[in-house]
């Protein structure tokens, strides 16, 4: 507080007096940033730009980006927003922060940041302001929310644990973080429950509606893990993608898992074997059929509403395939340099005859989001997003909070 000036009548016979009065602040300090996200009439897609620390909001009507907002905890480090989930009912967006190692950042960055713990932030769907955050383990890989919004699950794609000199299958296995979204606080959030799943767990799907079972693509274990999240000890069953699997020699590299709309099967896409396999949920085994083999590494797929069709992005060569699930017949559209989609990563069926396709780009400049005709796979629109986009969450117009 300011010092009062005190009596100032030095040398005078009378006492002069100085009174200090504090004038109160009028109006509000620190007004909220004017950045509301008004959901367009045809909905929006929220795209995580993992090397730009931003989320792009795409107008699903026009296919164009209409807002880009920063996310993360740190204004300089690459927080690496990696995958995103949305709960329209609670008006929440969940984003995993992965803190990747970035080349060219200096000796200390190279040594340290790969060990940084991950975080999950809950953002307001209204403006992407932070409403809560909780620490998870290193290298969060995927973040998924149960249909009823009661369970948030984060995988930890800990490749370093699988390649350590003394790694064994047991030591290489990483966890899932199981989080009650309602417990996430701005500070002081309770530690999530961690359930050991498998080696390098990445893409996941949750059973409906409450997410009791997690279906997890286990990249470095060549398996699909089915984790009972209600079991106190996190009961895990692992289903190998093939025979003769040897830890340390990834033969399939399952990367993503996507549950069909009726919940009967899980599509498992693999990077190394470049194929798609289907897992029978009720029978708890892979379907006895040949995998759908692609020319490129298979990334995050999406289902049609009736479960008859699956669209899967592929890389090297870049393209997208449309798979008739019953027959396994696949139709491919390959992307050339001029098609505006380098390294397609995730597809999202919009339910209106279109597929939104997230393309990573070259990881230095902007990536892109294409709207494709679901039947012809022709490009309808194309828009630039941030650096290294890796997922899109579909927010329907009715989700406006």
């Amino acid at each position: 507080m300011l010092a009062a000036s005190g009596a100032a009548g030095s040398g005078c016979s009378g006492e002069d007096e100085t009174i200090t009065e504090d004038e109160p602040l009028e109006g509000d300090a620190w007004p909220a940033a004017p950045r509301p996200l008004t959901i367009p009439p045809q909905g929006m897609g929220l795209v995580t730009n993992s090397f730009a620390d931003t989320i792009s909001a795409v107008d699903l009507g026009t296919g164009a980006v209409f807002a880009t907002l920063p996310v993360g905890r740190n204004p300089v480090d690459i927080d690496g927003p990696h995958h995103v989930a949305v709960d329209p009912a609670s008006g929440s967006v969940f984003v995993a922060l992965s803190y990747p190692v970035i080349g060219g950042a200096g000796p200390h960055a190279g040594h340290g940041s790969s060990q940084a713990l991950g975080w999950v932030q809950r953002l307001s769907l209204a403006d992407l302001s932070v409403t809560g955050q909780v620490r998870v383990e290193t290298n969060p890989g995927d973040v998924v929310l149960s249909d009823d919004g009661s369970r948030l699950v984060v995988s930890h794609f800990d490749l370093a644990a699988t390649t350590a000199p003394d790694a064994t299958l047991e030591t290489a296995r990483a966890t899932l973080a199981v989080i009650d979204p309602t417990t996430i606080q701005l500070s002081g959030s309770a530690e999530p429950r961690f359930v050991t799943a498998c080696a390098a767990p990445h893409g996941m799907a949750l059973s409906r509606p409450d997410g009791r079972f997690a279906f997890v693509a286990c990249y470095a274990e060549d398996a699909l893990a089915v984790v009972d999240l209600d079991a106190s000890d996190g009961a895990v069953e692992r289903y190998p993608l093939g025979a003769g699997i040897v830890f340390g020699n990834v033969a399939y590299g399952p990367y993503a898992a996507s549950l069909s709309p009726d919940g009967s099967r899980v599509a498992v896409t693999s990077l190394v074997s470049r194929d798609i396999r289907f897992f029978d949920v009720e029978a708890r085994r892979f379907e006895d059929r040949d995998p759908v083999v692609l020319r490129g590494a298979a990334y995050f797929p999406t289902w049609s509403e009736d479960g008859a069709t699956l669209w899967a992005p592929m890389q090297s060569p870049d393209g997208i395939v449309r798979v008739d699930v019953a027959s396994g017949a696949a139709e491919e559209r390959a992307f050339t340099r001029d098609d505006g989609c380098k390294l397609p990563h995730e597809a999202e069926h919009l339910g209106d005859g279109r597929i939104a396709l997230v393309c990573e780009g070259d990881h230095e400049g902007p990536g892109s989001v294409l709207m494709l005709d679901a039947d012809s796979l022709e490009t309808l629109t194309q828009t630039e997003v941030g650096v290294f986009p890796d997922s899109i969450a579909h927010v329907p117009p009715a989700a406006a909070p």
Partner: protein
Amino acid sequence: MSRVCAARVPTGSAASPRSAAPALLASCALLAAALGAGCSDGETTTVTVTPAMRGAERFADPALGREGNLVACADCHATGADADPMLPGAPLGRVTERPSFWGGQEVDLLRSVNQCLFWFMGGQPLVAGDPEGDDLFAYLESLDGDDALAAAQPFTLGLVVWPGPGDPTRGDVLYRDACQFCHGAKSTGEGALITSSPVLPEDTVVAHPDGEYTAEERRLVFVEKVRHGPFLGYGGSMPPFSIEVLSDIDLADLFSYMEIP
């Protein structure tokens, strides 16, 4: 009889940011003294202290940070358009009108300020509604400047690459403008504000010995520290200097003056 001193914080330039705010506050007291010097008996002078005046005091006070913190907001930020180009923080005239901060990585001013408090001053975050923090906002809101200052300010940190040889004479000037206030004189640390900060360049060289760092990595540590401050795995509390404040050419000159091995 009474008089009122409703002093307002002037806007625009502040040649010596750290000393400016207390001087403004003192002006009211001096005014009161001057008014009282006429020897008219029994006069009462009321000094009205505005939120911006209180905020100005906070702006220049290291106590906004943790106990023992030595740096204030005013040490890194100028307040007017004629900002000292060597200060690492953006000039703050019209800062409350900007759409984003930290090179676009923050869109909330309060969050942006709290990042400074956390990383550079070790302080607790300010919360809207807290009188001290609100006064700081009032001070920031009082700062004027040209239209360019109302826009988001560039903050480019760049990659960590060795800039090559430069001009040591120019580097001497740059060192005094950008480094000496905190680190003290080259090779002695004499006059350093932060006595725990490394003496440059010797302490940093010693802290990165052979065997743990190659000669190339050791050189890059200097670039890394200037460009990224405590971020990207380094630690400490030094603010980063963007390319807009210190160009790669500036770094070349600076490091040549410092004779980094």
